[in-house]
Each structure stands twice: as C-alpha cells, then as structure tokens.
C-alpha cells in the first residue's frame, strides 16, 4: 500500500518534471497577479501593507484553481484512471498520492515565491514569515478541496467554470483564516486562533477529500 502511494507520487512528479509548462504557468499567473496591484495602486506603502495578505491569498486561491484542470483530466484521457480504479490498491491512497504530488508541483512554489512578492508590499519580516506559514498550511487544503471539484467535473464540457463554481465557496473559509492570520499578527492581536482554524481545515480536508474524490472518480469514469 505504501509502495503504491510512493510509486504514484514519484510517477506524477516525474511527469510534471518532464512537462514543466503546468508548473510554470501556475507560478507565473500568481506572480503576475500579485505584482500588478502595487503598479495599479501606486507606491502608497501604508495601503499596500494593509492589502498585501488579502491580495496574496486571493492570487494563491485563483492560481490553485487554475491548476485543478490537470489534476485528473490527463489520467482520464489516456485511460490510466480506469486502471487505477481496477488495481487492488485502495483508491483513496492513490488519490492522496496524486493530490500530494499536485500540491508539491503547483502549491509549494507559491509558498516559496511569497517572500519575494511580500517585499513589493513592504511587509515586515514577521509578516512575511507568517504569510508563508499560512500559505504552507492553506495551499494543501486548497488542493484537497479543489480535488473534489476536479473529480466531480471530470469529462464534462466546460468543466473549468463548473469547478470554480463548486470549489470557490468551499475555499472561502481557508481564504478568510489564511489572510486573517497575517492581519491579526501584524496588528498585534496574535494569529494563533486563525492558524489553528486553518490547520483544522487542512486536517479535515486531508481526511475527507481522498474518500470523496475516490467516490467521484468512480462515478465520473462510468
């Protein structure tokens, strides 16, 4: 079972490395969106500091939404998904490996890029640290939640729009607590409460999403 998990994880990472456009397009989108705001708003440091967490988080949410398209559709098209349904391995373990690989490829680069972007908004080192921490907890949660939407809309025409409609409402708590944690820390209130909520969302989605995704995949591939 663990062997199957690591095999799928390794397979998906290898595939991503051999087809880099998926990684770079998500990251590029994130960087561009975040960078456009300071240009449009102007060099008013106080305003920028105030809106930074919100903008970075909204951009991260939209970027992760953009990446959902590829999560299962390639496997669905070439028939590998059918084979995964028919192997004697627990499907939710394979799904977990796929989601983890997806996050490592599309989510983790956003976390690592955040400090550079934070500089544009004149964020303090503390604020940048907490921003990275919230993204580190929040983006995997977004991948888990998004996977459900991606699995449900598999094989549908115009699935992209539908995914956003399904997933965005579910992602709102992550957004609120993620951006909220940074603001609370900066204003001196302490972001522990927000962080705990964020972690709770991550743990819950990590447990429930693979099960929900497995069921959706069985329905979608019928």
């Amino acid at each position, binding site marked *: 079972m663990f*062997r*199957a998990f690591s*095999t*799928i994880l390794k*397979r998906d990472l*290898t*595939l991503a490395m*051999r*087809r880099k456009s998926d990684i770079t397009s998500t990251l590029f989108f994130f960087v561009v969106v975040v960078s456009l705001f300071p240009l449009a708003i102007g060099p008013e440091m106080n305003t920028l500091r105030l809106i930074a967490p919100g903008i970075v988080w909204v951009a991260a949410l939209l970027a992760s939404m953009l990446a959902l398209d590829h999560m299962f559709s390639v496997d669905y*098209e*070439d*028939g*590998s998904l*059918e*084979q*995964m*349904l*028919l*192997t*004697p*391995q*627990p499907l939710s373990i*394979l799904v977990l490996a796929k989601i983890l690989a997806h996050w490592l490829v599309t989510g983790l680069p956003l976390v690592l890029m955040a400090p550079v972007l934070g500089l544009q908004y004149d964020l303090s080192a503390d604020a940048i640290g907490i921003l990275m921490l919230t993204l580190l907890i929040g983006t995997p949660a977004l991948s888990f939640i998004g996977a459900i939407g991606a699995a449900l809309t598999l094989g549908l025409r115009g699935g992209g729009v539908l995914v956003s409609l399904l997933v965005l409402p579910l992602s709102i708590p992550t957004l609120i607590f993620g951006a909220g944690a940074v603001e609370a820390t900066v204003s001196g209130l302490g972001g522990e409460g927000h962080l705990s909520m964020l972690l709770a969302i991550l743990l819950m989605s990590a447990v429930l999403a693979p099960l929900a995704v497995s069921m959706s995949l069985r329905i979608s*591939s*019928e």
Partner: protein
Amino acid sequence: MLTVTSLECARGDRRLFSDIEFSLDSGELLHVHGHNGSGKTTLLRTLCGLVLPVSGQINWNGDDISDLAEEFTQHLLYIGHKNSIKDDLTGLENLMVYSVLDGHPIAEKEAWDALSKIGLKGFEDLSTKVLSQGQKRRVALARLMLTKAKLWILDEPFVALDKAAVELLQDVIKQHISNGGMVILTTHQEVEMTTGTVKQLELGWKKQGHV
C-alpha cells in the same frame, strides 16, 4: 469462476442488451461478437465493475463483484481501447508503475525482458510519445506477460498491431488459457485456439446472447 446472470445494460436511455447469461471457468475463452454499437465495450466495462449494470448479477466464485471490490480486481487485468500508458514515461517506467499497482512489483530486468519479448527491443527506454500507435499498443500488452491476474478482459486487443504481433499475442493468450487462465475478448478477427474451450457470445437486437 465468473458467472453472469440476466445482465442488462443501458447507455443513457438506450437499452444495449438484456438477459445476458454465461459462465466462464478456468481454461476457457469467451469471444464477444456484435456489430458496432451493440455494447461490446460496455459489457466488458461492466464485467470489470467500471459500469454498473441496470439489472442482473456478476459473480466471481459465487460472490458479487461489487462486494468483493479489491478481492476481485486483484484477479483481473483489463486492457481497453485506450492504451493507459503515460506518453511522457518510457515503456519501462510504465510497466514498473503498473507492476506495483497490480500488487506484484517486478525488477527492472523483468520489464526489459517483457518489452523485448513483445518486439520492442531498442525502444525500452524511449519516451512512449515517440512510439507509433502499434508500438504503444505493444507496451500496453506487455503487461500481459508480467501479470499474475487470472481473468483477462481485452477490448479489441489486436487493433493497430502488425501480423507478427497478432500471432505473438495469440500465443500469449493460448499460453494463459492452457495454464488455467480465463480470457474475455472482443475482436473482429477470428481467434484460433488449439487449447481450451472457446465460447461465443453474440450481442445484438435479433439474437440475444446465451452461451
């Protein structure tokens, strides 16, 4: 033993077939016939458990396959219309991944052997996107040489293969049957079998299938 009783399948609102009955024992091959659109692929996918039947029972050694789940799929190898191989991986990597998923991890040596046996010597470590349609099909079919599954369900396995590969595949199937395996396949070519029993199932409006 695979037993199917009064199976009915539909695609959307259209009923494809009903009252399908057959049983398949060790060392038997079932050849499913039918014109285009008669539901051959749907039947095979239903037998795998990918599609739920409208009504009827599919039993593996007496138990319903949907209850058995992984205990059934470990005995099953399905190769469908799609080759189910990853274009960006090499033939070797594809086989290695499937061997782990199928629950019988193999050494890289075995994968090399299987690929050269199926006529892909020299192409083993090339990304499969540079291979031709027939060569990709061969990569997918190389799994047959490595699997320990008892029941093979093959949907048009001979498509895109050249004459030599067709003969090779027929040999592999014969070998499996004579070792007590079971095969269900659809094809528009006649499969010549020298060992085992070959059953025929005809799908279509006029003649409803009984074996």
